[in-house]
């Protein structure tokens, strides 16, 4: 029984290790767990159905999509990028550090909806971080000629005889040009813009996770209190939230240092 109950975990580990499709891994793990432990097919289906219906609220972000999509079609992300180009001394790391502080601080006050990947990161934070990164590369926003500076000055200069492309941000030609710039710089095509976007999403997660736990009425705090109360140990929500502070500070310091270090490296 002990080893059989571990079988679904093995499915999860092996499935992701073999880089199988996540939905396939989840389906297979679900069926394995049901097969191993649940009394009947009917009980299994009932559990799956009930839990799915309870989880439907997770898709509530769909309501934000029409707003975001229509604004993006009218140039929202190019606007966000343009805003950042107007700020002197804008750097990807510094910008994301400010977002980290905002996200973590507001989450600690229970305001977890001031952020999120669909509402904030995709339309605003990621384009801003990318624009700050582009400027640091010395990419001119008004001419097509590349002016490389610093240690990369000896590298071959890439010229593409096309009109300015940086404002669109995402079209194929600007991507191509970015790759060529990277090629000239590092001798390898490494998509820096891809890395910046991933870092923006990571910053949102770190800020949310290590902020929300300081909020007294947050589910995790109440869950911990209830767990110990059931077993005869009384803890106040305040004491649990306060003991989260050292880790929250360390999370901010570690992730923040990484962000600033990224600025210095370039």
């Amino acid at each position, binding site marked *: 029984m002990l080893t059989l*109950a*571990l079988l*679904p*975990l093995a499915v999860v580990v092996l499935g*992701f290790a073999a880089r199988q499709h*996540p*939905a396939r891994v*989840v*389906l297979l793990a*679900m*069926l394995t*767990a*049901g097969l191993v432990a*649940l009394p009947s097919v009917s009980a299994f*289906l*009932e*559990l*799956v*159905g009930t*839990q*799915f219906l309870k*989880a439907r*609220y*997770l*898709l509530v972000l769909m309501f*934000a*999509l*029409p*707003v975001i*999509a*229509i*604004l*993006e079609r*009218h*140039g*929202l992300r*190019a606007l966000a990028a343009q805003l950042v180009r107007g700020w002197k001394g804008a750097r990807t790391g510094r910008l994301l550090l400010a977002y980290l502080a905002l996200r973590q601080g507001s989450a600690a006050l229970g305001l977890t*909806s001031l952020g999120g*990947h*669909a509402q904030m*990161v995709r*339309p605003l934070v990621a384009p801003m971080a990318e624009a700050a990164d582009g400027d640091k590369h010395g990419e001119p926003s008004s001419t097509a000629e590349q002016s490389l500076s610093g240690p990369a000055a000896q590298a071959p200069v890439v010229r593409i005889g096309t009109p300015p492309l940086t*404002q669109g*941000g995402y079209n194929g030609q600007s991507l191509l040009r970015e790759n060529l710039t990277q090629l000239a710089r590092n001798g390898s095509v490494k*998509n820096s813009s891809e890395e910046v976007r*991933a870092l*923006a*999403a990571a910053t949102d*997660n770190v800020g949310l*996770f290590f902020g929300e736990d300081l909020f007294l009425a947050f589910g995790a705090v109440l*869950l*911990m209190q209830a767990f*110990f109360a059931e077993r005869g*140990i009384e803890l106040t929500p305040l*004491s*649990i*939230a306060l*003991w*989260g502070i050292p880790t929250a500070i360390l999370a901010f310091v*570690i992730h923040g240092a990484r962000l600033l270090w990224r600025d210095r490296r370039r």
Partner: protein
Amino acid sequence: MSALTPIYWLLGAYFARIAWRAWHGAAPRPRTRTAFYATLSVLFAFGDWMPAQLAGALVLLVAAIAGFWLPESTSSQSAQAADRGRSQLLWPILLIPALTVTLTLLIPKLALSWLSGANVAVVALVVACGTALPLALAITRERAMHAIDAGGDLFEAIGWAAMLPLLLAVLGSVFAAAGVGDALATLLGAWLPLDVRWVAVIAYGLGMALLTMLMGNAFAAFPVIAGGIGLPFLVNVHGADPAPLAAIGMLSGYCGTLLTPMAANFNLVPVALLDLKDRYAVIRAQVPTALPLLACNLILIGVLCFR
């Protein structure tokens, strides 16, 4: 009928519209996509009125379509404007979080019997989006249906990744019912010399991170690890202070959340939203933060629980 039922009707209608467009559109695999979104539409709109077993069977169908037949997430950046927009475009996008927060704080003050707890945040977000949409339409001078279809295209571009958090929530419950976590905690307890204090500290912190990675959720891992290692060994045998033990243990679990594809809404959905080529790009970006932080947590547990 809960306060969220009308919201699920709207979502069901939204999915029906996406299914209809998938059927009539020119994109590849129209039948697969129509089946996927039509099944979702039925589950969302009529889930409360069907036998739970039928809903469960439909969920398995959705998971199978997503895993085996649905096309990979497509590029969601196709319809970008080349020019930057006017600065009014920022208002609707900032209105959504601002109004959501305001409503989350205001609604509980009304003390409505039919709307409380976790539902408040959901309703607040829906109302905020419903207010931002007409504003966005006025600024862009677009028709409502055009915006809704643009949102539908965006959802299709995210594709199966958007459904994964729901499937993982189900998986967590099935795991809990099957006693998967308990089996792992029992196994750890049987193999490790937990009467040595530092072994117990490391088993607790790493166990939280590991089980969270496997189950995708620190909330599910906490009762298992705190009940299997934290309480019997660290508190009862070694005399650890339970308050820091609980708090830092949960945050060790959060380090695990940063490292696992099982936490799909945090680690896989943004990959699709930001059009990243590497499926694990966000996790990769989080590893250099999560691992040092986990090590710090182990030290903090060792120091702060045994003052």
